[in-house]
Each structure stands twice: as C-alpha cells, then as structure tokens.
C-alpha cells in the first residue's frame, strides 16, 4: 500500500461543502423557496376567484388590513388561550406521568407502551371520538355529569363559546400528555441516581429532591417538550376543524383555521399568504424566546463542558 498525503484543511472544508451541497439545495428548494414565494405572494392582492381584480402589488397593504381585522386578533387570542391552557396542563400531567413511569414496578414496559396509544391515534379520529363523547344527547360526558348530579339538563357543549373550549382542550390534553410524559421520562432516566442517594443520605425530603435535583436537571427535556407543544398548539388546526369548525360564530377559531379559511376556502392567496407569514413569525419568535429565556442550548451540553 502506498502512503497517501493527508488532505489539508482547506480542501477538507471544500469537500465538506461539496458533500453537504445536495442537502443544502434540497433545503433551499423545499423550505426556503416556498417561504420566499409566500412572502412575495403576501405583497400582492391576489384573489383566485376574482381574476378581474388582477394581481396588483400592494406592498404591506395586506398586513395593514390584517392589523385592523378584528377576526384575526380574536383568532390570535383564541390560539394563545388554547396554547397556554393546554400546554400547562400537558406539562404538569406529563411530569406526573413521567415520575410514575420512572418508578420500578411490574409491567412497566407494557404501561409505557400503552400510554402511547392516544398519541398514536390520528388527530382527526381522536377529535371525532371526543366530539361524540360530548354530544349533547348521546354523549357520555352529559350522562356522567348528570349521574353525578352536576347537571340537570343535558348541556349542549358546542353552541356556547365557553363550553365549546372544554372538549377541545380535554381532547388535546388527552392526546398529547403521553408524548410529553415520554419526553420527560427520557430526561428523568438520564439523571444520575447517585444524586438522589446522596440527597437521601443527607435527609432531603422527596419534595426537596424534586425541586432541587429533578426539575433543574430535567430543564433541557422540559424545554424540548415546551417548544414542541407550544409550537404545535400555536398551529392547532385539525382538532378544532373537526370538533367545532371554529364555532359557535368564530369563538373557537384559531389563527391556523382562519388562515386555511382565507387561503384554501376563499382562495384569497395574497391575504392568506400574509396571514401565513404572520403565523410563521409568531411561532419563530416564540421559539427564539424560549431558547433565550430558558437559557438552554437545544443541541445539548456541546461546547460547555
């Protein structure tokens, strides 16, 4: 065998770029190009159903209209409400679930797998299921509540703004708590057992251990769960589309449903694109805020050892 000269650093870098080039091109094509196109589209008045209006360039006109659009602000409010309530419930229940699953008990493997079932059910199916359960006449929710003496008349959940949110949020919590639970469980298992042993030796209570060992060390996992869930909640669409359709009126309509409505139902490409860009900016901003605010590097402890 002939000895080969080691390649120098610059040709190494060139080879690196060359090797990543296909991936970069693909990312450019499937992520950045559509995004750029959407931004460009959002600067036009473009209504597919009204070709007589043409496709005039209107600059930030669509954005200015959105800022004065009461339905948009309401939708944003609904989305925020949904995100805050459902994510906090999912996180607290998920943590409890993770702590329980972290204990050693018989059949733990089966429990861990079974817990994933709600998560594995397609959202549309889960949404239909919950809608049936909250049906005013045949639904089990009303039966249980009246048997418990809490209801005198069957409640028609989906015709009141406040009550329509209850099944929606419950369905989301039911469906995604297991996901949060498993994410946190993975975090729990990476915590060194010796820390707890040492704390116990020093007489620390379980509550103290939870607050001073578990939660701080679980922070990266919590952050991942929080980001995933908040961004998902902010883009909530199918669940509400199936369960309430945004009603009654528009009182459960989230931003994604409003966007879908103007973009795909009404085919207002310009306005819908502007709405999509705003949703994108809001979710992007949220992700940034989390990363900064919680001071955790998503990629792990790299470079901070």
């Amino acid at each position, binding site marked *: 065998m002939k000895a080969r000269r080691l390649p120098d650093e610059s040709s190494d870098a060139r080879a690196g770029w060359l090797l990543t080039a296909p991936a970069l091109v693909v990312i450019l094509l499937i992520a950045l190009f559509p995004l750029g196109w959407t931004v460009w589209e959002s600067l036009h008045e473009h209504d597919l159903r*009204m070709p007589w209006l043409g496709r005039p360039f209107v600059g930030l006109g669509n954005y200015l209209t959105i800022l004065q659009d009461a339905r948009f602000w309401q939708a944003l409010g609904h989305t925020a409400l949904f995100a805050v309530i459902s994510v906090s419930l999912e996180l607290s229940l998920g943590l409890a679930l993770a702590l329980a699953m972290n204990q050693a008990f018989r059949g733990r493997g089966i429990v861990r797998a079974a817990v994933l079932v709600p998560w594995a059910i397609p959202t549309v199916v889960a949404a239909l299921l919950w809608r049936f359960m909250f049906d005013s006449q045949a639904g089990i929710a009303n039966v249980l509540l009246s048997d418990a003496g809490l209801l005198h008349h069957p409640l028609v959940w989906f015709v009141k703004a406040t009550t329509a949110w209850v099944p929606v949020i419950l369905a989301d919590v039911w469906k995604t708590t297991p996901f949060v639970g498993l994410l946190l469980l993975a975090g729990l298992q990476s915590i060194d057992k010796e820390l707890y042993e040492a704390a116990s030796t020093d007489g620390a209570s379980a509550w103290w251990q939870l607050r001073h060992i578990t939660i701080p060390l679980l922070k990266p996992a919590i952050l991942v769960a929080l980001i995933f869930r908040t961004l998902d909640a902010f883009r909530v669409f199918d669940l509400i589309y199936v369960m309430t359709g945004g009603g009654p009126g528009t009182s459960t309509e989230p931003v994604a449903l409003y966007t879908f409505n103007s973009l795909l139902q009404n085919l207002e490409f310009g306005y819908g694109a502007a709405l999509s860009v705003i949703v994108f900016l809001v979710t992007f901003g949220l992700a940034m805020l989390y990363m900064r605010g919680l001071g955790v590097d998503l990629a792990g402890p790299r470079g901070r050892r």
Partner: protein
Amino acid sequence: MRPLLTLPLPLALIALLSCQSGRPDDGRTVITFAGSALGAEGEVLAREVARFERANPTIHVRVQHTPDDATQRHQLFVQWLNARAGEPDVLQLDVVWTPEFAAAGWVLSLDRWHPAAGDFFPSTIAANTWAGSLYAIPWWMDVGMLYWRTDLFRAAPASMDEMVADMERARRAGVPYGIVWQGARYEGLVTCFLEYLGAFGGKVMTDDGRIVVDSPEGIRALTFVRQLLSSGATPAEVLTWHEEESRFAFQNGNAAFMRNWPYAVTIMNVPKDSRVAGKFAVAAMPGAPGGVSTATLGGSALGINAFTEHADAAWKLVEFLTAPEQMLERSRLGGYPPRRALYDDPRLADVIPIPVALARSIVERAAPRPATPIYSQLSELLQIDLHRALSGQVAPDQALHDAARAMNALVERTHIRDLVASRKRNSP
C-alpha cells in the same frame, strides 16, 4: 445506476396520461364531463351518456368523477380553470357558482346557441344568469321545504304564526321538538335563513348589488328564528346540525316539523329505518305578514369550460342531458326537474315521490340566492353573524348590522357593481 432504472416509470405515466386526453385512436372528438358520477347517480349518467354517444357517433364522452362535497369540488374546479385547463369540457356547477365562474371568464356564455330559457322556471334561469347572459343550463333543482307530521296535524301550517301554534300543541302532547333544521355554521344555515327572510319580506341584496339584509324585515326574520331557539321549539343542538342530523331527529319521531331538501322523502318512507314512515308530508315553508312563502333554490346546472377546444360538442352534451327525457329520468334521484312543461307530463308522477301538483307549488316559490360572483364570500360573512346571533352571543339586529357592514365592504373592495355595469355595456 438507480436513477436510470427509475426513469422509465414517470415516462410511462406521462405516456399513459397523454393517451387519455385529446383524440382517441378512432378519430372521435373526446369531451370530458366532470361531476357526481357515483352510485345511482353514476348509473343514470352512464345510461344517458351511452344514448348520447349513439345519437352522436363522432363524439366520445369521458366521465370524470369529482368529489360530491361542494366545497371540495369547487376548489378543484377553481384550480383547473385558473390554470386555463381545457378539460373538463362540461362542468356540473352548483347553482350558486355560475355567476362566479362567469365573472371570472371560466365558463362560456351560452347565448350563441340561443337556449330556450323560457322553458325553465325563471328562478333557475336567474340563478345561472350574470350581467344579462345565461352561463349554465339548469339540470335539476332542489328546494327547501317543510316536512310535517300527518299523525299530529290535519294540514300544513298556512303561516309562521300557525306553525308556532302547531309546535306548541305538539310539544304539549309530548313531541320533544317543534322544528329541526340546518343550523351549523355553513351554507345550509343561510339557505334556511333565506326562507324566513323571504317569509318576512326581506332580502339580502338589491338588484343593483347593495346589501340590505339588516332591514327591519331582516331583523324581524332573524328575531323569529332566534325565538324558535329560545322558546325551545328548536333545540340548541340544531346549531351544530347539517341535513342528516335533522333528518335523524325527525325520522325518530322527535320533531313535529323539519326543514330539509327533497331527498329525505324517499328515505324516511322506509318503515324499517323510520318511525315516521307514511306519517309525514311536505309543504312549502309558510309565509308571514309582509312577505311570501319562500323555498331556497338549490341544485345543479351544466356549464361549458371557457378554455374548451370542443365548444360545440360540449354544448351538444349539455343540450342532451338537460332535454326533457333525460331530466325526467334524473328526477328519480331526488331533485325536481327545472323544465316547467314536465309538470304537465303524466310520467313525472311515476318518478317523484310526492304529488306533482304539490311539487309544482313548491318549486314555483323557489328563490335563488343572490346571483353575484362573490356569493360564497358574502354567505360566509353572513353565516358567522347569523350563528353568533342564534347562539346568543349578540342581538339579532346587531348581528345583521355587523354582517351588512362586512358584506358591503366586500362588495366595495371587489368592485362587483362596476364589473356588472361594464359587462352589460360591452355585451350587445
């Protein structure tokens, strides 16, 4: 090597697809029909198309099934026509789409073939006319009507007040609901509301395109519907119901009245599925002082793609499918024929499930929804505010003022009125 191996597959697909369009090998002109083509509807259509091809040996018709869901089909058509696709040549249009497609320049004006518009009910022609030209031929019509229980009442109510009194009597006798209808936030809600609006003498839009739904008559109509809900005559659940949920309630004997389309008559007369089989009849929705008894017009019309390469062949198919023979055959499927003369044809009695005179009296009251290119968007705005008022979030007058303001803003933004005026000037 991999990419080379997989290349033939897309090529074969392209070859396959290109075989399907254009001229077949035998030199016949191929036209494509897009519409509902499943089940019984598909069988009737296939028979009719076979007869058409026998009568027109130079034309071959390809039937392309499109989704039965109106919203999905609409979306598909808009995408095709926006791309100026020449196919499908003949389009099955929901009655409210014609002005939209006409204004967009997506369907041909049929005036050049001089269709005999006078043979059809005027409401069905009005719905398919835009800026003075006819753009689609009515194929079959749907009308909103009142289903009433013959075991509870001796006759259908002659007025809204009578209907309210009847419902109270029936509920005292143990029938849970007075009247069920379609109250979910969708097009069905508007079709129901328009019948009350007509009954009280209101309308959505003036002939010159201004929104007047918040007139005193409109407010009276919406207040009346709101009272149906607040008095319990209509259960609150109705605000989440479409056609089928209301049919189930009526069919199980839970309601004295139901507002629905004609399709339910045959289904609910099957004794093993229906507790009201043989115990109900239909009538026109009643009127009220100041207005007229109104039946919202639904149904389908046939239009021709403006980008077709075979306009004359396409017209031949449209003419054939809407001819009296075919219309009669199609009436078995549930809708009513839009040709007036057919109601004097003794054969109609064999194909529709209700007495012909009754059917005629209802379809004569048919009122089209506003024939404007922006109907769907206007309807969506109206749906939201109607639903808010009916679910008790805002008062009826406030809801209609809000709706009218938003709808008028849309009329202004889309320059619809200028467009109609300029089209009318330019057409001979």
